[in-house]
């Protein structure tokens, strides 16, 4: 244990290879405690892989992850109790009703039933899912599914929330509500890490940001530092490259 150094998540030298391809190739990250941290990068940059390794879902080939000073891969039980995870591209136990699923997640993290039931009730209310609590998750819309997954991530009152693409396919109203919830969670001393494609959102919401591309961190720091006077989107394009200039092929033009 390195003791709490004011960092919610401390990642050092993270590597992961799938076959011949390095998905994550030496990533260092410092997520300060109480920050709202954005992780941005193009498709296939290694965001999901990094977050999976940081939350104990994927074993790194090399590197270390500490959650509030606790080594995720040496003391997973202690570390995981402090983290709430919303993973991208994983299924839910969707034959349960929304209410059952959140309660299940609560009981799995070891709380007693009355607490689990109380928190489930609160979370469903918070996320506007009360009326859908009795519907099977398999019959939910994409946005509702995202929200119920968020509820399972928050039910054990983690100190750190790690959310992979939390706003994908969520309607604008729900997205704004989720943003408020996350904001107040950060105000209450929690730490939130989100990955996203939407620069605008990250710029407005987060106070820290890291740009990842091809399995490496290109730049990290406070949002103001990273965007350096420009907008985050322009800065991102400048860093990552790949922007093409031109009007597209002749046959696509109609005027």
């Amino acid at each position: 244990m390195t003791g709490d150094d004011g960092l919610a998540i401390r990642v050092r030298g993270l590597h992961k290879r799938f076959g011949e391809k390095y998905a994550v190739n030496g990533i260092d990250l410092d997520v300060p405690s109480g920050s709202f941290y954005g992780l941005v990068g193009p498709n296939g940059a290694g965001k999901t892989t990094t977050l999976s390794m940081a939350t104990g879902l994927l074993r790194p080939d090399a590197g270390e992850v500490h959650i509030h000073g606790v080594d995720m891969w040496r003391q997973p039980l202690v570390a995981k109790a402090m983290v709430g995870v919303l993973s991208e591209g994983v299924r839910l136990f969707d034959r349960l009703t929304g209410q059952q699923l959140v309660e299940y997640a609560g009981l799995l993290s070891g709380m007693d039933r009355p607490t689990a039931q109380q928190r489930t009730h609160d979370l469903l209310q918070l996320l506007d899912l009360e009326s859908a609590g009795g519907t099977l998750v398999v019959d939910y819309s994409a946005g509702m599914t995202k929200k119920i997954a968020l509820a399972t991530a928050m039910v054990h009152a983690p100190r750190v929330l790690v959310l992979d693409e939390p706003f994908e396919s969520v309607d604008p109203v729900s997205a704004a509500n989720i943003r408020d919830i996350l904001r107040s969670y950060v105000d209450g001393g929690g730490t939130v890490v989100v990955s996203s494609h939407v620069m605008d959102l990250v710029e407005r919401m987060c106070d820290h940001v890291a740009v990842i591309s091809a399995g490496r961190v290109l730049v990290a720091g406070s949002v103001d530092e990273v965007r350096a006077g420009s907008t985050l989107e322009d800065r991102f394009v400048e860093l990552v490259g790949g922007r093409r200039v031109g009007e597209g092929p002749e046959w696509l033009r109609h005027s």
Partner: protein
Amino acid sequence: MVATLVKLRLLVLRNSFRRSTSQLVAVIIGALYGSIGLLVVLGGLLALSLAAAQVATTVVVLGGSAAVLGWAVFPLLLSGVEQTLDAAHLAVYPIPLRPLMLGMLLSGAVGVAGAATTIAGIGTALPWLRSPGVALIAVVTGVLGAATCIVVSRAVTSVASGLASGRRFREASGLLILIPLILAGPIVIGITRGLRSSADALPGVAAGLGWSPLGAAWAVPGAVAVGDVTGAALRLLIALATFALLWMVWRWGLARSLVTPARASSRVRAPGKSGLFGVLPGTPAGAIAARCLTYWFRDPRYLRQLLVVPLLPAVMWFYSSLNHSTGYLFAAGPVVAFALGIGMIADVSFDSTAFALHVSKAVPGRADRWGRASALLIFAVPAVVLIGVGAAAVRDDWLPAPGLLGLSFGILLSGVAVCSVTSARFVFPVPEPGDNPFRSRPGANISLLGPTFAAWGVIALLCLPEIVLLVVSLVTREAVWGWLGLAVGVVLGAVFLVLGVRLGGRVLDGRAPELLLQLRKDG
């Protein structure tokens, strides 16, 4: 456009081979079985050329009608068999209806079942080899018959697609098909008995079918062969009209499904109910047991395994009454115990990536194992007891009952024990959540074989004491051995269960992320 669609179908087929060698092996073995079956059919047709014209006609018409009927019924039950050229997938492209339908028709003929039907259809020329003119006609009508098969399946699916898009319908139909399959033995026996007693009626049935939409196409060559030209022409007319009608129905259904995409139906449960979560202990293991138990009765993939419990004793009872000896009935208990115990072998695989929740909440491996095991045992133990006692009561012979019950418990408990270890270590390719439970992924059955057989062997080994005691009690006809067997079954089974759960829990604790990665790759 038609060529593009057929090419797409072939491309998907080829790419599915590339994904893994085990799939390729499975497809090759499947193709081998298919070709052997086809060869048998073709050989039979060739042999018919030596028989009288009427016999050949009867056989071809009956077989052909059965094929058309099968193609009409199976797609309904096996939804999601051929989704490559699913109308819903193609709805976004501006493909005119006619080439789309032609493409779907032809691509149906290049699938395994479609190709077999087409070849067999052309093979109906073989009985008429001695009169080449008739054989030539049979080639044409055979193709027409095969095309009717494919069109009828397409028509049925497209009309039913509105209905079939509901999750509940899909799941229910996937389960319904299992009932005739499990009862296949009794059904086949019943039919063969019926046929044997009514063999003389078959030519009459075939003659009738020959005038019906099902068999008209297949009956044309036979009519020509006996010189009934008018009859042949009329039957051909019926066959063509059938094809045209089905084509129109398909066209209507397809046009409708292209503009009305599948919608999901849902039923709202009253909020505020936790179901089983409020009943079982509020611990991680208790919650997992509640979740698994909910799944056993709500997920068709689990329900499929559950169907064995009532159906198997029914089958045993049928065979018993057939042989006027109730010996079979006693096997029901151990066999159901085995089916239920081994049923957990792919438990984590059924979770698919939803298992990530267990990993992220750091659920202790042992709690995971206990939860899953107790969910099964909660209903499996009463079921096994009920069947064992019921069988003894029906037979009115209580002497073997304790020994059999001991063996059943032994098999059940050590089966669960073995599966607690294997499901922590291996990921099996299983139907994904929401898929038709009957839809085996290509290669799934083959790659399951090794570990499954190994598990069977271990279970047999672990149950050896119970087996020996049962045999002794049956030979000596002394009740004490049976009771001893019961005691041994319960105690030894429980010991194995504890060991299996601990070992499986330790494996899971060490390898949960790797297991999840494997599930992700597979999912």
